[in-house]
């Protein structure tokens, strides 16, 4: 990273803290899930005491998609009571996904939106850095939800557009697509062979909401649970296609992957596929039906004999 | 042969206990193993169907009956469903015996009360036969067994046999519903029947097995009847994989059910953290 300038303070933080405090004081919600500054950088924080709302921060290190805590599988979070969630434009799309799939009710959660100008690739930094092409999360480039509409509150001033990363995800997908088939196979099987099957990708995904994941089904055992390349390929393909048209590109799966599998390339490719075939772009409009589970009589079928 | 490799057994008998519970009799394929295999009442093993995997149950036959072992299981999981498909002559893998046992030898001269619910009779059956095969070493034997319905009673032939013996007090209880109007045994949950049967606690031990709720409700009743905590025995079940104290999933706090159990006294149970 060449430019290590710190980012200017986020102007909406006071509003963020005030709204959070008011929500707790009024008893509208029982817990605020936002970001705090900790030993290793920014991280999620759960605040139920109005006096503690001053812990809340927002800056370029606030990478996490906190919508994952809304997931109905999180019993221990649900026990805390009604939640107010701090969300960026990208995160809100995941809330829309949960609404679309009837996993939460709109009244079950208060959304405190933050106007975001892009985030860093990593949160574990002592201070927020100004974004540069080298350090910006590549997914932020071309963000189409910088003025979220689904939120209950929206704080912060309009932010500048995130910088273009050294290489965009689209360019990387295109680079892969331009390679011969055998090269792509070699690339992906090598990547998947690193997988240790911790399922961090699934656990942090705000939209992996199945009561029982296919990988846990044993009758029959569809996906082998040993971390060998064969089982890993099945798992990674399945995870990806189960999110086709649902993935909101928050990048959490890739960020949490302890062995660095570039999952965002797969996710982005799937976004291209559903866009090209079904003209679908994931948005924060819960009424916009997801492409898988829907159909048109005249869908493309050039691959079918 | 490493510790995870199963011994091979051949299925020699299949008995349907209820609509979903089945007993298999298994004979070790290797003659030396068949001769030397020994276990004690309460121990368990890892039974496997090749291609499906391993599942944990107690050895349901008595150590006094040599040459074979038996297991009883309900077909509800991956392995048990496959195990239900095996026929006489098929191969089943077995690792064991593992875990501790009921200290039957320490009970000489004492009265013994058995309380079991549903398929929980399997581990108890092993002890019952162990005791009955050495009948004159023990005092009074009382068996209180309950199941949801007459249909759900397991080991029906043996229940009859025990019931007809003069040296065993056998009490069976079910909720007969309307389907079995000629039911002559007790009616209702097993716990009040234990209370009603009121075995005397003096110089006696009790063995309680069944679904967690049966164990949970019966222990206080036995305490009321005067049984000391260290005279009441039960077996705990937790999900297990290795059975050898390595794979790390069966522990309740510092207690490894596969090694420190599966047999525990009520006194030991009271020491366990509430996580089972």
């Amino acid at each position: 990273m060449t430019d290590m300038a710190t980012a200017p303070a986020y102007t909406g933080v006071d509003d963020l803290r005030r709204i959070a405090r008011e929500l707790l004081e009024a008893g509208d919600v029982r817990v605020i899930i936002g970001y705090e500054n900790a030993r290793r950088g920014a991280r999620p924080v759960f605040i139920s005491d109005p006096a503690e709302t001053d812990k809340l921060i927002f800056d370029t290190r606030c990478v996490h998609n906190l919508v994952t805590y809304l997931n109905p599988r999180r019993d221990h979070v649900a026990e805390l009571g009604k939640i107010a969630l701090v969300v960026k434009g990208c995160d809100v799309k995941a809330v829309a996904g949960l609404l679309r799939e009837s996993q939460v009710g709109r009244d079950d959660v208060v959304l405190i939106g933050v106007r975001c100008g892009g985030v860093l690739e990593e949160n574990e930094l002592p201070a927020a850095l100004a974004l540069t092409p080298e350090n910006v999360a590549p997914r932020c480039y071309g963000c189409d939800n910088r003025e979220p509409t689904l939120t209950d509150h929206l704080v912060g001033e309009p932010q500048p557009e995130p910088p273009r990363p050294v290489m965009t995800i689209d360019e990387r997908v295109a680079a892969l697509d331009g390679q011969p088939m055998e090269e792509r196979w070699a690339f992906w099987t090598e990547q998947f062979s690193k997988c240790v099957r911790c399922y961090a990708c699934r656990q942090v995904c705000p939209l992996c909401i199945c009561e029982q994941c296919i990988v846990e089904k044993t009758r029959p055992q569809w996906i082998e649970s040993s971390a060998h390349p064969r089982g890993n390929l099945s798992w990674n393909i399945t995870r990806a296609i189960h999110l086709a048209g649902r993935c909101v590109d928050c990048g959490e799966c890739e960020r949490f992957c302890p062995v660095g599998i570039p999952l965002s390339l797969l996710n982005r490719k799937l976004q291209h596929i559903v866009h090209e075939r079904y003209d679908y772009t994931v948005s924060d409009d819960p009424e916009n039906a997801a492409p898988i589970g829907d159909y048109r009589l005249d869908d493309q079928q050039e691959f079918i004999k | 042969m490493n510790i995870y490799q199963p011994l091979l057994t051949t299925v020699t008998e299949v008995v349907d206990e209820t609509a979903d519970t089945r007993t298999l009799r298994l004979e070790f394929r290797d003659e030396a193993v068949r001769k030397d295999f020994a276990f004690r009442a309460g121990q368990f093993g890892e039974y496997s169907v090749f291609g499906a995997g391993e599942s944990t149950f107690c050895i349901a036959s008595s150590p006094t009956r040599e040459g074979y072992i038996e297991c009883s299981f309900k077909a509800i999981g991956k392995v048990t469903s496959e195990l239900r498909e095996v026929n006489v002559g098929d191969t089943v893998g077995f690792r064991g015996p593992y875990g501790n046992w009921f200290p039957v030898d320490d009970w000489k001269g004492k009265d013994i009360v058995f309380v079991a619910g549903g398929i929980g009779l399997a581990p108890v059956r092993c002890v019952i036969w162990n005791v009955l095969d050495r009948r004159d070493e023990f005092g009074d034997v009382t068996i209180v067994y309950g199941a949801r319905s007459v249909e759900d009673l397991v080991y029906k032939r043996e229940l009859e046999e025990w019931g007809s013996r003069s040296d065993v007090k056998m009490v069976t209880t079910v909720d007969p519903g309307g389907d079995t109007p000629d039911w002559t045994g007790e009616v209702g949950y097993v716990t009040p029947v234990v209370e009603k049967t009121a075995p005397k606690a003096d110089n006696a031990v009790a063995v309680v097995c069944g679904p967690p709720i049966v164990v949970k409700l019966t222990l206080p009743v036995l305490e009321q009847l005067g049984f000391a905590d260290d005279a009441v025995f039960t077996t705990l079940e937790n999900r297990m994989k290795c059975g050898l104290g390595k794979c790390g999933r069966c522990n309740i706090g510092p207690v490894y059910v596969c090694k420190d159990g599966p047999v525990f006294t009520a006194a030991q149970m009271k020491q366990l953290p509430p996580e089972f």
Partner: protein
Amino acid sequence: MSDRYFISDSDLRGLAADLLGAGTDVIAPVATDICQSPSAIAASACTLDHSLVDIDYRALTDADELDLSRGLPQLSLKGYFLPEHEALCRWKQKGITVEVEEVPTEFAPRVVLAAKACDAAALEVVDKVMNWDYKDELWNGRREATTIVNLTCPMIDDSCFCTAVGTAPDDVKGADGLLTPVAGGYVYEPATDKGRALAEANKARFSNDVEADTRGREADDERAASRQRVAANLEIDAESVRDWIDTHFEDPLLSQLAIRCNGCGACTSVCPTCHCFDIVDEQEGVGRGTRRRCWDTCQAPTFTLHASGHNPRDDQHVRYRQRINHKFAIYPLKFGEVLCTGCGRCTRVCHAGQDLVEILQAIDIAARRPGDSAEPEEAAS
């Protein structure tokens, strides 16, 4: 302290080359990264800028791959002793009967160079559970076949805390010898017969010329300095932590500390001491298959799920408590050792911010407040 050798930079590489030449597997830190991977297209498709260079223990194919200049390997040495998956036996259907084939429990000798002390120490800790009653031949076979040489660790970052859990960056626990960097090379101190045999068998690479007042002192100073650096990160009283956890099973502090946890198993996968496993049957084509053991994680709900649907650990903070409990109370009570060597990987891979350093500090503070387990203060850092 009795015998010390000097080995130069080039001789260390030469030693790796000699071993490889003799057909011995050499496992050592190697720079890995999708941008340097053998597949030609990786460079153009690399997305993870922040992980451009990573390091991992790999079997060397060439002595030049040995990379001692970087930080902590992504995964610990665990996988070389308890592989992510390994065959326990193989079976084949023959008509209605089945034949079972054994797997070997003897392994070819191999050498680990430049292991981190935390990773080697973890092996000795896990030895206990692998041998407390039944002996795990697969684990033991690999342990016996392996000579491990540590490299004194300069400390990775402020999430290192080996000194707080009974080991040290220059420890030889679980290892057979120790290299400590000095000017121009390393001081090598064997700790076991295996470690001495390595130096004896490769005499040409080692020299006995280690003067106590120069190179020897340099090595001693380096070791002491690195111990001091790590000790500044975290100091706890492991015994009172153990006793507190053991006696505060339902203390709300533990569930409060688990609140961010997503329940992914990343921490257990990267942990050098987490050894829990699953046993599964997998088919290889038709009528044939392998019984395998593979890594499992206590953070998954299915880990303890009964067939009946009952789950003794049905909530994420209960599963998190199990992990803390197993490491800092259950294992010490049962085996006399903390099931943690302070490598800090769990903290580094947890992007949700579950921070073991902070958690241990919080428990340590609670444990020092006698007879009280009320509202915990977040530990000051």
